[in-house]
């Protein structure tokens, strides 16, 4: 009875094996898998990120002939923001000499963190994923420059504290996507609410209810918080802002995190969204020389997947581009450390750990003022970046604050405790000791 099945499985397996072995990458290239999501409910965020990431490397290939004379190959693998697909993409690309993974999904990041030390390929979750991975001793293979969620939240609270009569005695509402991503900052918020003296109100939004938030905002109206902070993604963002406008919540007291402040979120709302604030760490617009190069070498030649030129310089496009900048710089650092041109995942890890994006280097790259300097070390995988706040002026994002450094002294001990908790039930977890 099961003969056909056996044949089917056999054929499928053979075909699978064949497809895996065929596209073995040429020896002299740097292979970077890009786990993108251009489909599904979160495609609105996934598309610009994937475009920015791919375009920067295309620019490097066209302008400089790659990095250190070696061409960069970026291969996209569609995850649809689904964890199972992400793992499949990981398995299908890791054997081709992948240097680093940027999953752009907390769910997929959580799956890859334990795999990274085994396969010796680092994971760079740039400003997302598990906050605790900033502790380099416990997580040698995982990085989250320029800052984790906890650092970001502390910067946002610092900003609130600097406005008006401070944060003490205020009510802070926290509306979040009710998955790992949105739940991450809660322990920090709960700790800080005691030490900073504010009341925390939580409004979880289930993934299914992203577009039906009227009851959440009714509760906001009932509770009357002084400030709202949002950890949203995808369609949740614009819906939340629309609901906030509806209940007449003052938008200049509503702060989104850096995944809740894209052009795609605010463009449909337009002028009505004026005043809404969000955190960011990557510059906005195309006024940077590096962006101009991307337009000149890639977009104008039609080698980009961007639908129109106006979308270059969008918040999330620049985010993806910045991710590519970090990866490119880490590759350079790794090439310098090893003296090799073609590096491996393990070399890449050393490069990421030796990562140093100084103000001078940013200027050389044509990204002056794009972001705060980042410097990683063996112990610090978070890189000590800063965030700034941007405000929607009705048609575009404008930077409205200076770089706000996180409250490192408060966050670090909490990160250490969280890292210890993560590794506690994993007796064979590989750590490293830093000098």
């Amino acid at each position, binding site marked *: 009875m099961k003969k056909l099945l056996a044949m089917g499985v056999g054929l499928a397996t053979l075909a699978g094996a064949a497809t895996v072995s065929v596209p073995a990458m040429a020896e002299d290239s740097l292979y970077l898998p890009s786990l993108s999501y*251009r*489909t*599904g*409910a979160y*495609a*609105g965020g996934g*598309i610009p990120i994937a475009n920015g990431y791919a375009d920067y490397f295309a620019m490097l290939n066209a302008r400089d002939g790659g990095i250190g004379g070696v061409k960069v190959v970026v291969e996209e693998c569609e995850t649809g923001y689904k964890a199972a697909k992400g793992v499949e993409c990981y398995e299908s690309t890791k054997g081709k000499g992948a240097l680093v993974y940027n999953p752009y999904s907390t769910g997929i990041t959580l799956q890859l963190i334990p795999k990274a030390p085994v396969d010796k390929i680092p994971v760079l979750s740039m400003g997302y994923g598990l906050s605790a991975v900033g502790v380099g001793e416990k997580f040698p293979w995982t990085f989250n420059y320029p800052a984790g969620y906890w650092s970001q939240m502390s910067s946002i609270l610092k900003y609130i504290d600097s406005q008006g009569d401070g944060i003490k005695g205020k009510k802070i509402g926290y509306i979040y996507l*009710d998955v790992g991503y949105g739940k991450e900052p809660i322990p920090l918020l709960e700790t800080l609410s005691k030490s900073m003296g504010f009341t925390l109100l939580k*409004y*979880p*939004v*289930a993934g*299914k*209810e*992203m*577009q*039906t938030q*009227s*009851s959440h905002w*009714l*509760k906001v*109206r*009932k509770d009357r918080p002084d400030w709202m902070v949002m950890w949203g993604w*995808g*369609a949740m963002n*614009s*819906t939340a802002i*629309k609901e906030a406008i*509806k*209940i*007449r919540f003052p938008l200049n007291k509503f702060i989104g995190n850096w995944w809740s402040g894209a052009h*795609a979120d605010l*463009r*449909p709302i337009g002028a*009505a969204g004026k005043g809404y604030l969000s955190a960011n760490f990557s510059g906005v617009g195309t006024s940077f020389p590096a962006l101009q190069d991307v337009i000149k070498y890639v977009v104008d030649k039609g080698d980009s997947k961007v*639908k129109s030129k106006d979308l270059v310089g969008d918040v999330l496009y620049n985010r993806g581009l910045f991710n590519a900048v970090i990866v490119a710089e880490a590759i350079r650092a790794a090439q310098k450390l090893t003296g090799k041109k073609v590096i491996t995942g393990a070399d890449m890890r050393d490069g990421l750990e030796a990562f140093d994006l100084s103000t001078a280097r940013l200027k050389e790259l044509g990204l002056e003022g794009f972001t705060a300097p980042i410097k990683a070390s063996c112990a610090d995988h978070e890189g000590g970046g800063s965030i700034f706040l941007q405000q929607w002026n009705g048609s575009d994002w404008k930077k409205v604050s200076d770089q706000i450094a996180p409250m490192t002294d408060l966050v670090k001990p909490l990160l250490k405790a969280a890292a210890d908790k993560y590794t506690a039930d994993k007796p064979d977890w590989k750590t490293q000791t830093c000098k």
Partner: protein
Amino acid sequence: MPILAWGIDMEFLNSIFVAPFVDMFSAPDFLLQVLWEGFVSGILYGLLALGFVLIFKASGVFNFAQGIMVVFAALTLVGIHSFGIPAYVALALTIVVMGVLALTIERVVLRKLVNQPDIILFMATIGLTYFLIGFGELVFGGEPKKMIADELGIPNGSVSWDIFGGVVIFEYRDIAAAVIAAVLVFSLGFFFSKTRIGRALRAVADDHQAALSVGISLNQIWVIVWFAAGIVALATGIMWGAKSDVSFALQVIALKALPVLVLGGFTSIPGAIIGGLIIGFGEKIFEIYWGGLIGGGTESWFAFVIALVFLLFRPQGLFGEKIIDRI
């Protein structure tokens, strides 16, 4: 988390039986706002369920693809408009597209599956759902889009009403949704009871074979109901898209139509709207006044639990036909 620490004490009983009502009556303006929000989401659930009812009534097919048809219709409208075609022309063209879709579905899927068990037809509509998701994303792209509500003349903004020492806010778009829903229900009711095709439709719903024997073309009727469901989907898509963006995330909400149908009955047009309203009011009030007790976020399942309770006591729904397959 309180759910784990359920001890029967006075404070707990108070929080269930007294405090919510005190809340309600101490802030009547807020209660009114809650009811209005419930009404608005109820109308949208009702519209969604209406599409299911139309098709179920005439062909006995439980059309799982109704949710994706909503997204598809809205996307088509926005997509056509983005080529620089005026909004009303785009609307007309979208209606044509929905007609073509109905015709294609009838020709390619339904005609081939005549006389198959209901469950097979149900599964076929799941296949259709997948096909339309892929097709829609391929043609229009996956990113969320802005509904062209302003261009279609749907007013933006809100009106507030000072009452009970507070304020109740009504969005123009929500009012428009209610009006459109009412117009749709009445015109469908008129269509079903007064026109020749409407009567033929009801004949088909009663008995396929008898209808065939008096010369009613089943295939034609099916195209018409699928087309009507397509127009209802378009209306739903416009209203829903105006509230949030048009994106594929919307299709998840379509499953909410199932409990609405259980409540209203699978074959009743007023039932769909009233069922939708009951679910809309119920889930809002429960979430606002009681949801906090068990951690909030109850809207994702509350409707289904109401439906479950209903199934145990009145399986035919409020307005459904009495004869249902019971065990």
